[in-house]
């Protein structure tokens, strides 16, 4: 098992290297260090001040190794990331690690409940719909899922804010307060929107798995043994369904940290959701590479977690 994890880690490192390389090429293909400086300092800035800022932030060095082997930005970029030295944001020189820690709390307080509710609502609902296959509950369930899936999340957000927050005034339209006694009031609406927007796809995905497993021969054997339908669902279908479900679900666990872009922007939650987009638009290379680096690490972590779960749940899989 350890050998396997080490091999995957090694492979992960290669992927992360690839990602950082691709990011560097992509960013500097469309942006010039001067643009980073100008975006940080403002428009009407004399050239000498731009040079000073670039020198101060290390953007005055040549970009590529073939220009200057021992002092170029590509190697500095790699070494900074590998040392987890995230440094400061290009836009306003605040420490990136502080921003990540501050933002992680609100982001997690939104994405974790969404993730858990997605499972807690999605799977039982799919089980019920699959259990009543071929009855009107199945058809109604599938219809409901397809309807829910076909609406753009923007409409859900705008609609919810208008109907629930403005007309019915159940929850504040936006805002966030980490104080535990009040936090539920702020998170209720975004979570509701997140679940409603997501449940269509999830339930349909889980239902397809349950229906597929339900048609396998071993279920017929269990019925022949005299097992009741609920017991078959729980003891046989669900145990086999965990394999495809876990692979899909575990892959998204690491990305809970990066928050959700839309929900956080519209509901005023100061998380990490919009950090990447703001960094892209604001030419903030240091923040961008940190987010992409963390994203890549999380992706690799997700892959390994998925394989481990696979081995956990499916005896046929041995991690050699």
């Amino acid at each position, binding site marked *: 098992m350890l050998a396997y994890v080490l091999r995957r880690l090694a492979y992960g490192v290669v992927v992360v290297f*690839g990602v950082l390389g691709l990011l560097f090429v*992509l960013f500097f293909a469309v942006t010039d260090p001067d643009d980073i400086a100008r975006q940080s300092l403002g428009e009407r800035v004399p050239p000498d001040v731009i040079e000073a800022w670039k020198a101060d932030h290390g953007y005055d060095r040549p970009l590529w190794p073939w220009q200057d082997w021992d002092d170029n930005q590509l190697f500095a970029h790699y070494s900074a990331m590998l040392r987890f030295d995230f440094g400061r944001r290009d836009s306003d020189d605040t420490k990136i690690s502080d921003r990540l820690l501050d933002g992680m709390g609100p982001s997690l307080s939104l994405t974790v409940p969404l993730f858990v509710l997605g499972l807690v609502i999605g799977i039982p609902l799919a089980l019920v719909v699959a259990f009543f296959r071929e009855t009107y509950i199945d058809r109604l369930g599938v219809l409901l899922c397809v309807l829910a899936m076909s609406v753009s999340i923007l409409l859900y957000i705008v609609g919810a804010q208008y109907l629930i927050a403005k007309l019915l005034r159940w929850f504040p339209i936006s805002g966030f307060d980490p104080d535990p006694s009040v936090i539920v009031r702020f998170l209720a609406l975004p979570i509701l929107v997140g679940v409603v927007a997501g449940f269509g796809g999830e339930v349909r995905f889980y239902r397809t798995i349950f229906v597929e497993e339900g048609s396998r021969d071993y279920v017929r054997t269990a019925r022949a043994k005299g097992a009741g339908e609920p017991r078959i669902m729980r003891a046989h279908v669900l145990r086999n369904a965990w394999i495809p479900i876990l692979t899909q679900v575990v892959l998204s666990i690491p990305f809970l940290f990066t928050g959700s872009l839309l929900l956080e922007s519209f509901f005023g939650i100061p998380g990490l959701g919009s950090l990447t987009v703001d960094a892209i638009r604001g030419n903030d290379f240091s923040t961008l590479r940190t987010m992409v680096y963390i994203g890549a690490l999380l992706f690799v972590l997700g892959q390994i977690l998925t394989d481990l779960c696979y081995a956990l749940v499916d005896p046929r899989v041995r991690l050699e």
Partner: protein
Amino acid sequence: MPDWWFSNAVVVGLLASCGALAVYVRRNRLWSEAAAGLWRRRPLAILVVVFYASVALADSIFWIGGVDAGDDVVKQHEALSLVDRAFLGTSEASYSAPFADVEFYGGAPLQQQGLHPFGTDILGRDVLYLVLKGARVALLIGGVTSAIAIPLALLFGVAAGYFGGRIDDGVFFLISTLSAIPGLLLLIALIMVLGQSTLSVCLALAVTSWVGFCRVARGETLKLRELEFVQAARALGVSEPQIILRHILPNLAHLIVITYVLLFSGLVLSEAVLSWLGIGIQGSWGQMIVQASDEISREPVVWWNIGAAGAALFGLILAVNFVGDAVRDVLDPRTLREEA
């Protein structure tokens, strides 16, 4: 060659290929049965999709002249589509409620009183006209992007699955790298490089959305390669590319069709978010929704912009999803076995 000639050529091409496809399907028993099964399951959804497609095609046939556009002089020289011509001169000064006679703000009388089923937007353009124009953009986003993404995925997926070894590792590395990078970053960088025209946004979307199907294609090819009929073909001395073309690809046909449909609705839905980020396509429903979302906070509420665009988007996606389900039920062998 001006771009509207190109658009007309594409329309002719599309209609010709649809005709050829229809002939092929009628001749091939497997596909004609599938088509009949499809029609039996979801006739309404198919009709809705065909309606959207016909609106989009009508909006893609352009020619110049033969029009007097009142005060918009430039229109005389512009290539206008059927839809443009149908709605010539229907613009007002500003907002007006559906079937209203007067402007929403200020109450000035409208030129086309009571003739705007979905009202007009802030620039006075008829919302129904804008919604119809959106159909072409939506089908371009969904159709063109998938048409680029799927062959790309097949190329890498089948190659990796069939040849394995170094090619497989290379492709797998590429897939992992691409999916580890946040899609948005890739998308925005590509759009910055390629520009914001419809085609370049489609290209950028394709590059960021082929990874999923590539994995599926690779897995399926791995399975097919081991099956006897492939080994038999190899034993008969059939060349590798021949095997791929005549044996592997036809067996992926059903997966291709299913993925095309699912990718289609996913892409059209995601366009709304792209418009919110400012990198969407001009004239899309997504852009209409984002433009109109501010109107929701006005008092009294201007709802018909966002309502019409939202309904049009919902209608297309719902129909495509239903057709997608039906296609999967009809074509996917596993569900066929379940039927017996």
